């Protein structure tokens, strides 16, 4: 990566044009294709309901209730992050700031705007949740 002079880092506000990275082996293989081996290996689409044995049959309604309470709370939390500035902590000590847009239903990808990266501000971006360790914002 080209390292520009120190003073050039100050002018990060101008969005950079979208970079077209080279294509991977498949037509859709930038890591988001659900059929790619990488996706299958790393990203389960969702956590399944626990397998119910005979002894657990009466636990199922309780589990479903707990699940819906937790999920509703989480969705409200996501609703409140919308359009706020968040800081993403990713692997390899990457910390980037962006404005949260939306999440998909399985929490696999986040859509963000104005992503501040070392190579400039990306106007719109999709962040893979598998790459994120945590993110934070002020409520």
């Amino acid at each position, binding site marked *: 990566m080209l390292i520009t002079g120190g003073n050039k880092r100050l002018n990060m506000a101008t969005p950079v044009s979208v970079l077209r990275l080279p294509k991977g082996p498949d037509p859709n293989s930038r890591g988001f294709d659900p059929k790619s081996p990488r996706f299958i290996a790393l990203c389960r689409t*969702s*956590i399944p309901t626990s397998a119910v044995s005979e002894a657990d049959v009466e636990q199922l309604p*309780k589990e479903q209730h707990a*699940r819906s309470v937790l999920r509703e709370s989480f969705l409200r*939390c996501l609703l409140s992050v919308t359009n706020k*500035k968040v800081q993403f902590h990713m692997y390899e000590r990457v910390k980037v700031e962006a404005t949260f847009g939306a999440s998909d239903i399985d*929490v696999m990808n986040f859509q963000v705007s104005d992503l501040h990266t070392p190579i400039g501000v990306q106007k719109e971006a999709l962040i893979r949740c598998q790459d994120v360790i945590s993110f*934070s914002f002020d*409520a």
Partner: protein
Amino acid sequence: MQCGWSLLGPLQWIRYVNKQVKVKAGKDEEHRGWLLTVDPVSASLVLVNFLDQDVGGGRASVQAQDVGGGRASVQVVMGHAVQEVQVLQEADQETTERLQSSFLPPRSRPLAPEQLHQRRAGVRRWLEQNRVPVQEDGEELLVAGALTITAPYGPEDCCSSNQIILDRVQRLIQSQPAEPPIHSTAPPNHSAALPADQPIQRLIQSHTAPPADQSERSSCD
């Protein structure tokens, strides 16, 4: 690399809620805070730190808005990155209440019945002025047989299974001019958010084929 956190299940996760926890994530990240919820789909933890309390490890922030009377910094730790979760302490009643009300939509004071009635009439008049078929159904407004508006008749109170109608009616209500006086006669075609030649009935009939509808509209120009 995943620890068992993601496999615990909702019944175990809910036991951690409203407790102060310490979470180790990724290689060397550590987060502390009150656990608000755990997403059952991704096992992600939502940790809240109130900035006016002295919580160990709480992050100071520059911009914070009020959350239920205080300021809070929220960290969401993705389930797949969690290494270890440790409970530090239980929340007292006050903190629990504060946590649970942090993200609820702000509850406005309940309106008196006459105010509700006036409001309902106002919204109904606005919809009728915009050529939207609306009926009063007890306390609710029934729009075009496909959408219901409950008290207090704001855009968020619209309920429908049809996304297009929902969007249109929400925008319409949002653009309603504030508090039109009851005695004035507003002009019939007052700033309709819908184009004047596209009554919502046509929209319902053709909502299953929106591309056809749009092409018809453009050919009329």
